[in-house]
């Protein structure tokens, strides 16, 4: 069983979570359709350390996880308020 350390619920089976993809900054509401398409569909899809939104489904608790997509290691997890405005962890 793979364990995800949840900032709210502690270490839990990763099957209780859903991964919702890279942390990115959404375009302004009045941005062009092309900018929205870029945001919605295109991905960095990096082989390396990524920062993603995850959700613990039973508690609907959203948080940030950093993990290495080459090795399947979870490096750290933290709550949304530890993200600064540029979208990077403090």
């Amino acid at each position: 069983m793979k364990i995800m350390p949840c900032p709210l619920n502690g270490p839990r089976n990763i099957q209780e979570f859903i991964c919702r993809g890279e942390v990115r900054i959404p375009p302004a509401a009045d941005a062009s359709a092309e900018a929205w398409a870029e945001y919605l569909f295109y991905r960095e899809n990096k082989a390396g350390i990524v920062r993603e939104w995850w959700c613990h489904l039973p508690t609907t608790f959203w948080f940030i996880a950093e993990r290495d997509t080459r090795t399947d290691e979870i490096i750290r997890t933290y709550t949304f308020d530890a993200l600064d405005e540029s979208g990077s962890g403090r």
Partner: protein
Amino acid sequence: MPLRLLRFGLGLARPDTRILPLPQELKPHYDVVIVGGGGHGLAAAYYLARQHGITNVAVLDKGYIGGGNTGRNTAIVRSNYLTDDGVRFYAESMRLYQTLSDELDINLMYSQRGHLTLAHTDASIRTMRWRAEVNKHLGVESELIGPDEVARICPQLNLSRDVRYPILGALSHPVGATVRHDAVAWGYARAAGRLGVAIHQGTEVVGFAIEGGRITAVETTRGRIGCGKVLIAVAGRSSLVCNMAGFRLPIRTVPLQACVSQPVKRFLDPIIVSGSLHCYIWQSQRGELVMGGATDPYPLYSTRSTLDFKEGLMAHMLELLPFLGEVKIMRQWAGLSDMTPDFAPVMGKTPLSNCYLTAGWGTWGFKATPASGKAMAACVADDRPPELIAPFRLDRFRELDQLGEAGAASVGH
């Protein structure tokens, strides 16, 4: 024949039966460099040489040919998709597959078994009726059938209503088949090699030299190669290679796992898929049960295996075929699937004027190998995608003109 066999048996000459020519040095320049020696790259090389007379072609693979998803997939081919564009394309691919053993002079073990996609909910019955009508409209054999007909085609299935997800019906696709995956890579590689294509294994592409919106040279672990045109066909590594070429893709790389059981006496003819239960199964010519399910729950570039996958798969599989409880798993593996948001592939031109792409093959691209290879060869040769693949252009995401194939591609690869 017997005389020839006898002469061969008694004779001393044992002709060399190499599939590929001996490894060669890289040439300083190729008219076309194909990145990725899976089925798609090798097929494109073959059709470039055969149909377009372009033979100064190199196929580069960082590992060995067919060592990616081509050699890891579960070999199912079918054409009962949901969108018109998808059905037309996959039907053309199956048409090419049917005569490919002869064309490539290699036994691809094309084996038509029939393909059943089980429905356990009213919602899936609805999607299946929709699929059946689209399929028939385009001349593909496909029919929604009830539980009695399911029992007639596959009496081994547990049709009890006393289970968590009773079988309510199925989409029956009598032409569904399996094809020996390795042989597809070897067949195309050997035929391309005989026409003069150079196949360089153990040659990883690590960068591109780009000038004025064109790729002028390909950097590899064995040195730099000048190129006229470049075709990228690297499946799960598409984003990494395209990022090197300076453009992003609407693709996530997610592992897909599969496994086979120990061999048992042949008992199962058709391919059985359940989208709702996330599992599928067929029995190989060797008697092994080939089994798989949906992709892993999060993106990853590792082909590790997990217990979660096996537990999830078996729980449902045992509901469909309870007697499998006695059978042991023998082997397990994974491949890296290049998943698009609309479950349809990406084929055609890229933002670079002499660079072409076939990607987004996700969990469903083995069946597409011949049609993708042939169409991409034409696209590279003519600098224009043939009509068959035009709807699969990369720009469809920017133009908000996606294809919506999830209803037919998500588990039933």
